[in-house]
C-alpha cells in the first residue's frame, strides 16, 4: 500500500495548498446538498403516519448527531496519530474540529429535546442514548477547555490528544446504547448496512442533508485548520511568502 499521502499529512505546507484547492469545492457541494436536503425534508417529504409533521425535525437531528460522532472519531484518530507519529497536522485537526463537533452535539441535543417533547412527552429523559450523547458533548467541552487553558502549546496538544483517544470508548456506547439497554430512544433509522426503515421519498432528503452536512463541516474544518497552520508556522518562509502574495 502507498503511504505517501499519510506522510504528506506531516507537512503543513502541503496541507495548506491541498485545502486551498478542495475547501471551496467541499463547501459549495456540501451547502447545496444541505440546503436541498433540509428544504426537501421540511417542505416536501411526506409527513409520518403517527407523528405527523413533527417527525420532520429528523432532517436536522440525524445529520447533526451523525456529524457529532464522526467529528469525535476524527478527533480520536488524530489523537492517536499525534501521540504515536507526532505529525504536525494531527493537533491542528483536533484544535480546529473540536468546536465544530461540540456545536453539532448541541444541535443534536436541542433538536432531540424539541422532538421529544411532543412525541415522547418529555424534553429530557436519562436514558442511555441521551446520556451518552451528553457525555460526548462534555468530552468536547473538556478538549476545548484544556486546549485553551494550557499556555504551553506542546503540552496542550499532548493533553487533548490523550482525552481524544480515551473518549473514543464513548462512541460504541452511543451507537449500541439503544440495543444493550432499554431506552426511550428508538434504534437507528439511518444505517448503511440495513435496508432503510423509511420509504425513498423520506430517506433521500435525509441522505442528502447528511452528506451535505459532511461537506459543509469538512470545508469549515479545512479553513479553520488553514488558519491554525498560518498561526503555528508564522516563522517559516512559505507562510511569509503566502501572506505577501495573497494577503491575509
Amino acid at each position, binding site marked *: 500500500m502507498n503511504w505517501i499521502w499519510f506522510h504528506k499529512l506531516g507537512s503543513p505546507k502541503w496541507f495548506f495548498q491541498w485545502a486551498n484547492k478542495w475547501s471551496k469545492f467541499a463547501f459549495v457541494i456540501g451547502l447545496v446538498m444541505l440546503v436541498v436536503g433540509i428544504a426537501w425534508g421540511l417542505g416536501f417529504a411526506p409527513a409520518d403516519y403517527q407523528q405527523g409533521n413533527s417527525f420532520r425535525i429528523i432532517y436536522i437531528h440525524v445529520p447533526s448527531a451523525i456529524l457529532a460522532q464522526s467529528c469525535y472519531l476524527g478527533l480520536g484518530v488524530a489523537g492517536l496519530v499525534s*501521540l*504515536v507519529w507526532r505529525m504536525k497536522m494531527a493537533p491542528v485537526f483536533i484544535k480546529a474540529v473540536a468546536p465544530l463537533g461540540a456545536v453539532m452535539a448541541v444541535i443534536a441535543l436541542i433538536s432531540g429535546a424539541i422532538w421529544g417533547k411532543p*412525541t415522547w*412527552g418529555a424534553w429530557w429523559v436519562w436514558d442511555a442514548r441521551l446520556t451518552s450523547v451528553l457525555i460526548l458533548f462534555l468530552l468536547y467541552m473538556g478538549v476545548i477547555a484544556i486546549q485553551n487553558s494550557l499556555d504551553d502549546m506542546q503540552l496542550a496538544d499532548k493533553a487533548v490528544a490523550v482525552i481524544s483517544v*480515551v473518549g473514543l470508548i464513548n462512541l460504541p456506547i452511543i451507537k449500541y446504547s439503544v440495543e*444493550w*439497554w432499554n*431506552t426511550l430512544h*428508538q434504534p437507528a433509522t439511518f444505517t448503511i448496512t440495513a435496508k432503510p426503515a423509511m420509504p425513498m*421519498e423520506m430517506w433521500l432528503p435525509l441522505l442528502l442533508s447528511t452528506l451535505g452536512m459532511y461537506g459543509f463541516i469538512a470545508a469549515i474544518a479545512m479553513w479553520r485548520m488553514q488558519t491554525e497552520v498560518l498561526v503555528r508556522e508564522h516563522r517559516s518562509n512559505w507562510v511569509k511568502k503566502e501572506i505577501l502574495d495573497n494577503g491575509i
Partner: protein
Amino acid sequence: MHPVRKKRLVTISAILVIIGAAVGLMLYALQQNINLFYSPSQVAEGEAPNNVMLRVGGMVVDGSVKRDPKSLAVQFQVTDFAHKVTIEYKGILPDLFREGQGIVAQGKLNQDKVLIAQEVLAKHDEKYMPPEITEALENAKKKED
C-alpha cells in the same frame, strides 16, 4: 514501523484496552440502573420493588384503556406479550399514546402490583411511513380478510 513509534502505539493501545474494560465492567455492573424501565415480566417475577420510584415499559393492551369521564384519570394495561401490568395515571397523555403503542410510565408499584404513574412517556420505533402508505396497507389487509 519505527521501534519508538511501535512502542508508543502498543502503550496507547494497552491503555485504551484497560480503560475500555474498566468502563465495560462498570456499565455491566450498573446494567439495572442504566435500563430505563422494567418489563412487565420483570414486574411479574417480583424483580421490581414496591413503593419505589421506577419505570415500567410495554405495549398498551388493545381495549384496556379506561378513561374516567369526569376527570383526567385513566387506567390501562401494558404487556410484553408474556405478562401484563395495570397502570393508573392522572394527567395529560402524550400525542402518541394509543392502544398498541409502546409507552414508558414512571411511578410506584402498590401492593397489588398496580403502577400508580406520575408520568407517561410514549415510545416510538425507528420506522417512518407516509400516511397514504399505511392506509394502503390497511386497505390491503381488509381485502385479504
